C-alpha cells in the first residue's frame, strides 16, 4: 500500500512538473519598455508572436483583424498576430487564475477592454504600464474628447490605449415603422400604442438602454458625473424602474421574459416578432443589412435625450510574455492607415479615436471623405446626441438591481 502511494505521488509530481513547463525568462515589462527609444521596442518585437485576447463574435471585426491588420504587421514589423477569443469577465478570471498559479509569464500579451473590465483589472492590479503615451501614433489621439480621454469616467492613466469609439443606437425598420419615436417620452407612447412589440436584452446593451433612461430621468448625465453617488443612483433607478414597471405589461411577452442577448434581439427583430432592436455600435445596422441579417429597410436611430458613446481600449496584462510586440501592435492599430480602414462602412465602421485636425492633410482628406457614406448616421448628429459613460458602479448596480427585481417580477 505504501509503495503504491509513493508511486502515485511520484506520478502526480511528474505531472505537476510537466504542467509548470520549462523555466523561461520573464519578459521585460511594458513600463520599462516605455522608457526606451521606440526603435529598440520595435527591434525587440521583430520575429515575435503576439497573442491577443479579444471578443471574436463579429465576422466583420475578425476579417479586419485577421485579413487586414495581421498581414501588415507581419510585413512591416515581422510580428505575427494571433487573435483568440477572450473578453471582459473571462479575462479577469483567467488572469487571476494565472497569478494564483504563480505564472509570471501568462499566455496573452494584448487584451481588448474597456469600462468595468478596465476597472476590475485595475482593482486587481492585473495591468502592466503605464505605456500608452509612449506610442508614436498617440500624438494624433483626440484627447480633447471626453469620450476618448476617459473610460467610464476613469483616467486610463497610460494603462490602456484607445482603439475606437461606438455610440448606442436603436434599430428600427423604416418600412414597418415610418415615424419612429425620437425620445424616451415618445418611445413610451409608442410602446403603449403597440403592445408586445418592444423589449431589450438581458446583457450589456439592455442595461445601457436603462442607464440612458436614467440620465434622462435625473436631468442629464451631469447629475451622475464625478463618481458614484448612492442617493442619486437610487433616485434615478427608482424612476427608471417605475417607467419599466408601468410599460412592461406592454413589452414583448408582457415583460415576463427578456431575450438573452443582442443576437436574440436581432433575430426577433428580423423575424418581425419585435419592432426595435439595438446596438452599442451606431453602424452595426449598415453592416448587418449588408450581410442580410437585418431587413434592407433597417435604420439606426438616436434618441434626442442623448445616447451613450464610449471608447474601447487595448491593455497589456501584468504577465504579458511579449509586451514589446503588444506595444507595436497597439501603435499600428492607432496609425491613421489602420484607423481609416477600420472606420470604413464596408469594413467595420468603428469610429476613429484620432483628431482629424492633428493629422497630416492627406489623411485628413481621406477621413473627411468617409462621412459621405449614405448608410451611416451623420457625424454632426452623432456628436450632438453623444453622452459619456459614468462611473462603472452605476452599471454594476443597475445590472444587479434589474436582475434581482424587474427580471424576476418581484418588487
Amino acid at each position, binding site marked *: 500500500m505504501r509503495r503504491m502511494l509513493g508511486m502515485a505521488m511520484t*506520478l502526480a509530481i511528474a505531472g505537476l*512538473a510537466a504542467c509548470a513547463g520549462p523555466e523561461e525568462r520573464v519578459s521585460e515589462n511594458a513600463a520599462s519598455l516605455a522608457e526606451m527609444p521606440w526603435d529598440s521596442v520595435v527591434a525587440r518585437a521583430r520575429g515575435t508572436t503576439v497573442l491577443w485576447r479579444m471578443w471574436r463574435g463579429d465576422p466583420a471585426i475578425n476579417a479586419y483583424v485577421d485579413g487586414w491588420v495581421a498581414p501588415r504587421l507581419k510585413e512591416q514589423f515581422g510580428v505575427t498576430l494571433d487573435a483568440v477569443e477572450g473578453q471582459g469577465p473571462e479575462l479577469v478570471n483567467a488572469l487571476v487564475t494565472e497569478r494564483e498559479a504563480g505564472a509570471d509569464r501568462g499566455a496573452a500579451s494584448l487584451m481588448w477592454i474597456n469600462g468595468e473590465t478596465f476597472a476590475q483589472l485595475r482593482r486587481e492590479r492585473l495591468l502592466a504600464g503605464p505605456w500608452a503615451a509612449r506610442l508614436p501614433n498617440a500624438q494624433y489621439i483626440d484627447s480633447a474628447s471626453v469620450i476618448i480621454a476617459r473610460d467610464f469616467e476613469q483616467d486610463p492613466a497610460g494603462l490602456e490605449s484607445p482603439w475606437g469609439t461606438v455610440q448606442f443606437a436603436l434599430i428600427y425598420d423604416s418600412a414597418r415603422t415610418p415615424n419612429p419615436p425620437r425620445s424616451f417620452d415618445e418611445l413610451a407612447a409608442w410602446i403603449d400604442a403597440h403592445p408586445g412589440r418592444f423589449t431589450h436584452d438581458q446583457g450589456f446593451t439592455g442595461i445601457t438602454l436603462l442607464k440612458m433612461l436614467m440620465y434622462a430621468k435625473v436631468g442629464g448625465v451631469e447629475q451622475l458625473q464625478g463618481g458614484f453617488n448612492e442617493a442619486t443612483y437610487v433616485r434615478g433607478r427608482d424612476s427608471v424602474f417605475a417607467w419599466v414597471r408601468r410599460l412592461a405589461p406592454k413589452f414583448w411577452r408582457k415583460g415576463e*421574459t427578456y431575450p438573452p442577448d443582442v443576437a436574440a434581439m436581432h433575430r426577433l427583430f428580423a423575424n418581425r416578432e419585435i419592432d426595435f432592436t439595438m446596438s452599442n455600435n451606431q453602424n452595426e445596422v449598415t453592416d448587418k443589412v449588408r450581410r442580410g441579417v437585418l431587413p434592407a429597410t433597417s435604420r439606426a436611430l438616436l434618441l434626442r435625450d442623448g445616447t451613450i458613446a464610449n471608447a474601447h481600449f487595448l491593455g497589456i496584462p501584468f504577465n504579458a510574455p511579449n509586451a514589446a510586440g503588444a506595444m507595436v501592435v497597439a501603435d499600428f492599430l492607432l496609425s491613421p492607415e489602420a484607423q481609416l480602414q477600420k472606420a470604413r462602412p464596408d469594413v467595420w465602421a468603428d469610429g476613429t479615436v484620432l483628431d482629424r485636425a492633428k493629422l497630416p492633410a492627406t489623411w485628413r482628406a481621406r477621413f473627411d471623405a468617409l462621412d459621405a457614406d449614405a448608410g451611416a448616421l451623420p457625424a454632426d448628429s452623432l456628436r450632438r446626441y453623444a453622452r459619456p459613460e459614468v462611473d462603472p458602479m452605476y452599471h454594476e448596480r443597475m445590472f444587479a438591481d434589474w436582475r434581482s427585481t424587474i427580471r424576476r417580477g418581484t418588487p
Partner: protein
Amino acid sequence: MNACLRTGAARFDAGRRERDAVRHRSSAGYVAVTLVSAPVVAGTLYSLAAAFGLVGAGSTGWDASRIMRVIGSSETWQSVLWTLYTAGVATIIAVIGAIALSVVLQRSGVGRALATFPLAVPYVAAGLAALLLLGQSGFFSRVAFAAGAVHDPAGFPELVYDRPGIALILAFAWKEFPFLALTAFAVLDTRGAELADTARTLGASAAATFRRVTLPLLWRGIAPATIAGFAYLVGQYELAVLLAPSAPQPLSVITYERASDPDLSRRGEAHVLGLLAMTLCGALVVVHGRSLRNADARGGASA
C-alpha cells in the same frame, strides 16, 4: 523536468518488477482512480476555497457571506427547482422514448442508426434548430400562419423563452434519448431475446413478457445511463442559454452569470452554485446506488 520524469519512470519500473500480477492489477486501478478523480478533487477544493473567498477574482479572505447569500436566496432555489423540473421531465420522456424504440426497432439496423442520429448533432445546433422550428416566428409558426391558424407571431404558442420550458425540455429529451436507446439496444441484444423467448415458451403472453421480463431487464440496464443523462442535463449550458426564459434562470446559466458578474465580489457565488449542482447530482448517484443494492438484496432473498 525530464530528469524528474526519468526518476519517476525508473521508480515505476522498479516497483513493477517487485509486484505480483494481482497486486499489479490493483495498483493500476489505484493509479487510474487517481488520474480520473484528481481533476475533480482539485476542482472541488478550488471551488470550496473560492466559495469561502480565499481565491479567485474578487476574493476578500475568509468569509462565508457568499455561501449564505446563495443559500439564503429564493432565486437560487427557484433556479434549482426549475432545473430539476426541466431535466427530470426531459429524462422521463427520453427513457420512455428509448424503451419504446428499442423494443420496436429490435431487429431494424437502419432504424437503430436513425435513432442515434441526434447524438451527432452538437448541442448548440440542436438549440438553434429548436429556436428555428418552435419559436413564435419559427417553421411551425409559419406553417400555422400559412394555414390561417395564426395571424401574427404572438398568436403562436410560447414554446421558447417560456416558463414551462417546453422547447428546452423537448431539445433535452431529443439529445438524451439516443444515448439511452444505445444502452437499451445493447441490453436487449445480450439477453433480451433469449429471456423473452424462454418466457413465451413457458406460456407467458406477449404483454406479460414485456411487463415482467423485458421492461425490468431494460430498466435495470439503462438506469445508470439515465442517472448520468439526468446529471448531465442539470449542468447543460448551451441549450439552456438559448431556450430558457429570463426567470427562473437555469442553474447553469445563473452560474455563468455569476462567474462573469460585473461586481467582482459576487463571482465567488458561481463556485457556490457549482458545488450545489455537484451535491445534487452526487446525492442522486448515491440514492441510485442504494436502490440498486436494495434491489440486489431483495433478489438474493427471493432466490
